[in-house]
Structures are given as C-alpha cells and as structure tokens.
C-alpha cells in the first residue's frame, strides 16, 4: 500500500510538472503582464488539454499524499517523495529535451540528499 501511494504521489507531481511545462512551452514566453495579455494567455492555455491533465496529476498527488500520511509518519513520507527530483530531471531530459549538464546533475544530487536530511 505504501509503495502504491508513494508511486501515486511522485507520479502525480512529475506528470503535473512535465505537462504544465510542455503546455507553457507551447504557449511561448510570456513577456507582457497587463491584464489583457494575461487573460489572452489564460484563454489560450485553457484550450490545451495538457494543462487540465497537469491539474489532475497534482490533484492525484495531493490526495495520495494525504492518504500516505494516514498510514506512514511524516518523517518517512516527505523524504521519500524527494525522489521526485531525480525522476523529474531525467524525464525533463527525455521529454522536454532539456540539457542536463554535469553541474545540474550534481545540483540534483545535492538537493535530493539535502531534502532527505531536512525532512528526516
């Protein structure tokens, strides 16, 4: 049960972030922040199915995290979800074609270890 819930938490967050990033990249760089420009961007974004799937992913992750907290301690739940950093970076390399340099990889390792220690 714990592994299943943990998979849902990490999977939901990763899916949510990847789909959101993909939808925003398709929309293009937002450089005008007036109300009219923002409303236009939001309207265009609402037509992209990815953003709705992304919100669904976040919702699944949120409820799965709540359920995980009901069966496991916070000291286990939070550090375990730090694995999302590694998974998300790898998937960003594959699906979003981002360049993961040695420096960025080292940063991912440092942050993941740091989050585990902070939440322990």
């Amino acid at each position, binding site marked *: 049960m714990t592994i299943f819930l943990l998979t849902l938490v990490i999977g939901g967050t990763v899916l949510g972030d*990847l789909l959101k990033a993909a939808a925003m990249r398709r929309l293009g760089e937002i450089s005008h922040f007036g109300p009219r420009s923002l409303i236009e961007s939001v309207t265009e974004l609402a037509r992209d199915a990815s953003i709705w799937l992304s919100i669904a992913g976040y919702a699944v992750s949120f409820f799965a995290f709540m359920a995980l907290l009901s069966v496991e301690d916070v000291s286990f739940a939070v550090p375990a979800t730090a694995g999302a950093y590694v998974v998300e970076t790898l998937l960003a390399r594959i699906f979003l074609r981002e360049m993961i340099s040695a420096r960025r990889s080292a940063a991912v390792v440092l942050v993941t270890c740091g989050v585990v220690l902070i939440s322990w």
Partner: protein
Amino acid sequence: MAPLSREAEPDRSPRWSGPLLQPATATFREFLFRRGARILACRATIPGGIRGRRRDTALKTTGFLLTVIVANALGNVVLGYGMEQVGSIASYSPAELIYSGLQAMANPWVLAGVGLLLLFFIAHAIVLSWADLSYVLLVTSIGYVLVAVLSWGFLGEQISETRWAGTLLVTLGVALSGFTPVSTVGELEAEDES
C-alpha cells in the same frame, strides 16, 4: 496645389545595370544594410540591446522565482494554520468532503492559503514559459531552507544538526544550479546535429 501622391514619386532604389559580376557585391551591400538596420531596430526597441534583454530576462526570472518560493512556503503555512482551526474531517464520504470543503473556505486563513497557492501555481506556470523545468525545480527547492530558517527564527523550533546539514546541502545545490543556464531549449538538438 499639386496632388500628394506616392505613386508619382520616382523610384530612387539602387539598381545595377553594369557587368554581371557586380550584382553579388550589390546583394552583399544590401545584406549588410539590412543586417545593420535590423541591429539598429533591435537596439531601438530593447533598451541596452541584447545585453539589456538578457538583464531583463534575468530580473524577470528572479522576480517570478521569488514569488514562487515565498507564495508556496507561506501558502502551505497559512493553509495549515487555517485547517487546524477548522478541525479534522470526520468522514471521507463525497458529500461530507464537499461540506467540509465549503466550511473550510469560510475561514479567512484557509481562503488566504488557497489564494497564495493559486498565486504560486500562476507564477510557476509563467516562469516555465521560458525557463527549464529542471532549473526551476532546483532553484525553488530553497523553499525547504526558507521554512526551516523561519521555523527556527520566528517559531523558536529546535533544528537538529542533521537538518542543518540538509539545509547546507540544499543551499549548495541551489547555488550550483544558479551557475547553469535558465533555458537550454534547442541546445540538445544543436549538439545532436554537430
């Protein structure tokens, strides 16, 4: 009074009517002229030219990342405080969940927390429109450090040595990611081609 007509004006654009070899020079001159005009137009629209644009993007990225970090940390704390006031949910049936949700929304702290998390979602989406997900993910992890330092400084919580070590590692990781480019879109394709 003579009529003002653009069609009546003589065509003053340079035309070549000399030897065959010359048009290449004329085309090259035209190319240089167009390129120069484009650079001048670019400098006229972007204050400070390309450097100005880079500086603007860096400022924009910093501003939105700060909003993401602060709105997320504050939103979670405020929402948590509000939910403590509302009390625990007695039943997880759909009707009870909807009723509890509506009841929770009547609490100003819950409302403020939801508003801050909405701000986090929007700012996060905006910054992702030009920045790498892997970059944003790393830099925003400084939120863990922010929460640890705030809970130590303002709430007087005891922070263990392990937690301080974790804080140091996250800070180092974020600092290291700060030395990587904000966006690497297209770099991988360029590397594949070369």
